[in-house]
């Protein structure tokens, strides 16, 4: 479903945000994309959804090249950015209507589809209000609903749980699972490692622009199990070199 080969992206001469990244996500899979702040997660996602052009490498979504045929590739993606910048002066309904227009969702289908999703995420009553009046969680929900209106096979979600209430967060996880069971694919980034551990079929860890580990959570645990049973968080801290020695922690906490 998603195939990124040898993808690199630099900002200026000094900053290499993504370095020769190889990544495959197969149908029926939830792929968790992890990494510390500034590791290159958002840049990777922006290249995947066609916002940024890679300097090198190729990207395919559902078998279509993002570089050669971006319009068709984008039609197969449902994308929710990490901070959904929505048009505050539009109402939720107007936003969804616009999204349906650009993705070519037929008029006869869109209302039924919208009502179903809006009811699921308890947004139906707010849909005629301006987005400017929404809370962060409501914005996240409307962005999420908008991204799924055209029923894309590939979901790309950048920190999708941030701002969502526990119910919506749970629902989203259920939807993700249901989507992959029907043959779709989900690529999502998160800092909540417990979520990744419980939800993902595979996880990839990016650090300083390089994909340093890709595996199923179980295999990763086996790989790092020399010193006993480890959580994904401990593995993450170990591979990204983020774990501080005990003495240093003690001196900082003084």
């Amino acid at each position: 479903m998603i195939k990124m080969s040898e993808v690199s992206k630099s900002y200026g001469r000094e900053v290499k945000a993504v370095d020769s990244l190889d990544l495959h996500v197969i149908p029926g899979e939830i792929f968790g994309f992890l990494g510390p702040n500034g590791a290159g997660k958002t840049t990777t996602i922006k290249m995947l959804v066609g916002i940024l052009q890679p300097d090198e490498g190729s990207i395919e979504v559902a078998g279509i090249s993002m570089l050669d045929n971006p319009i068709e590739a984008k039609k197969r993606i449902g994308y929710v950015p990490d901070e959904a910048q929505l048009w505050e002066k539009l109402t939720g309904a107007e936003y969804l209507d616009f999204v349906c227009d650009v993705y070519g969702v037929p008029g006869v289908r869109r209302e039924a589809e919208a009502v179903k999703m809006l009811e699921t995420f308890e947004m139906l009553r707010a849909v005629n209000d301006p987005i400017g009046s929404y809370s962060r969680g409501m914005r996240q929900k409307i962005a999420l609903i908008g991204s799924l209106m055209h029923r894309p096979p590939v979901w790309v979600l950048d920190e999708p749980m941030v701002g969502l209430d526990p119910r919506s967060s749970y629902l989203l996880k259920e939807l993700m699972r249901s989507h992959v069971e029907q043959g779709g694919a989900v690529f999502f980034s998160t800092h909540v490692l417990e979520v990744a551990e419980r939800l993902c079929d595979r996880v990839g860890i990016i650090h300083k622009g390089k994909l340093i580990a890709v595996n199923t959570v179980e295999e990763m645990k086996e790989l790092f199990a020399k010193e006993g049973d480890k959580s994904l968080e401990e593995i993450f801290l170990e591979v990204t070199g983020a774990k501080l020695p005990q003495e240093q922690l003690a001196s900082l906490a003084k």
Partner: protein
Amino acid sequence: MTTAIRGFKRKGTRKPFWALVRMQLKVRYNPGKLVESLGMDESKRQYGYLYLALVALAFIPFTVMLFRLADSLTLELVRANQPGLAVVIAVLAGQLTVVLFGLSHLMSSMYYSSDLDQLQSFPLKPWQIMYGKVAVVYAGQLVITAFVVAPFLITLGKNLGGAVYWPLALLVYLLIPLVPLGVSLLILVPIMKATAGSRRRDTFRVLLGLVFVVLIFAFQYLNNTMLRYGPETLIARLMERDGLVSTAAGYYPVLKWAAWALTGGDAARQLLGLALYAGVSVGLVNLVISLTQGWFFSGIAPASSGATKKHVPRAGAAVARPRGTMSALILREHRIIARTPNFLLTVLLNLLVLPILVVSMYITGGDAIPQILQTLLGAKTKDVVVLVMLGIHGLFTGMNQVASTAVSREGPMFWMSKLIPVAPKVQMRAKLIYSLLFSLAQLAILAGAAIWFLKLDFVRSVVLIALGILVSAPVSIICLLNDLRSPKVNWTEPQQAMKGNFQTLVAWLFSLLYLGILVLVTRGFLLLGLSIRLLYAVLGVLMAVSSYGLLTWLDSAAESVYPKL
């Protein structure tokens, strides 16, 4: 119970491009946004509409006057066999309006818009996004230019007659914004490219400001040096039909072609004019969009994300040197200004406003500066110079925006000032000291100019500097008090804190009031023929006492206002 979803298309689909244009028009020109631009929030929307209605009513007399003026002018031009000149005036006025407003609209629609990332993630082609953005700006410009163009084109049609004129005039009007929008894009996009990345938006604005300054000087220079014809040439041109059109169009033939399209005389000339005018206008915009499309989309790439920098500065160096609270606060004031290009440019322009004025007046011609210099040099006593310079310094201190935006500049970081364990009055005093330092720099330039150009003697120079320092204090405190009263801390772009801060004008008016009292005192002394030394002493005492009183007020205001902000 099911809530009806309003505004949903229920049959068929819209073309993505038109859906984009429709959505952007809604976002840009919705009534709520207009009300918001007046500084009112959603809850006061009805007042905003009322305000807009009143503004529209207020424009009626002006519009009527403009129509009458245009009617007389076009009638005379038709009688003088120069109807094309009315078209030249209309198109030129319209296009200058677009240059004036269109550039900022393009900036906000393209560079400052926060939706570009999202639009790029949609299945839209880059040209669709760019044309969509330009189309929305174009629509707005059509409305704005209608105010200046319509009076001329409508009255010309009335005075010329002919049914063919009206559709052609509509076409000419519709094409007016294209050339200036094309040129504006050509200026904007390279600057966007050069300042790519959200962290350098402020640099972008500064560069654009400099481009504007250069354009204004160039325009003034050309205005003074070109298009100077002797009366013989003008009379000769006046004798031919539309002879003045070529003269007025000068090096910009688009105006001439637009005139031909409407008043060319014969059909062939009209058709040729229309073809050239439309061809150049539409062609230029298309050419510029296709040329700059790639730059535009690479220019807006967020260079700040995912940074893995090779060079890591030594973190300890910046915090190794301990400072006192007051010096730390003053240093913070300085850093906020020095590290924000927009603030820095505003402050530098304020500092150099006098030299810039003098230089620009020399560049663009005119004899105002030599006349002022002669008057001051020829004054009976140099005390006049001291008083004039003192007045100018007071005015400039009130205008300089350092004090009048001191709280506003903190913007979204103001919470930090409430958090730190430093009394608000101490924080305000730090701002006052920094403002005074800046005012002193202004005074140094002014006093230097007085000594150098106006041959001010030593004693009077000392008096000027001493009284200059004294006048800086109350004026700065007044400006600080005003900013403290209603600071603009909820800005999203730095320019809203300084250049776009209406309160700086209010602060200046308050400081003018204070200076007015000093002027009245001075006037009284001069009328009574009292000693000038006594005047200096009285002014000094007045300023010192009022400074003390105002400072006490500032202290107590800071303590009571800070917790509420």
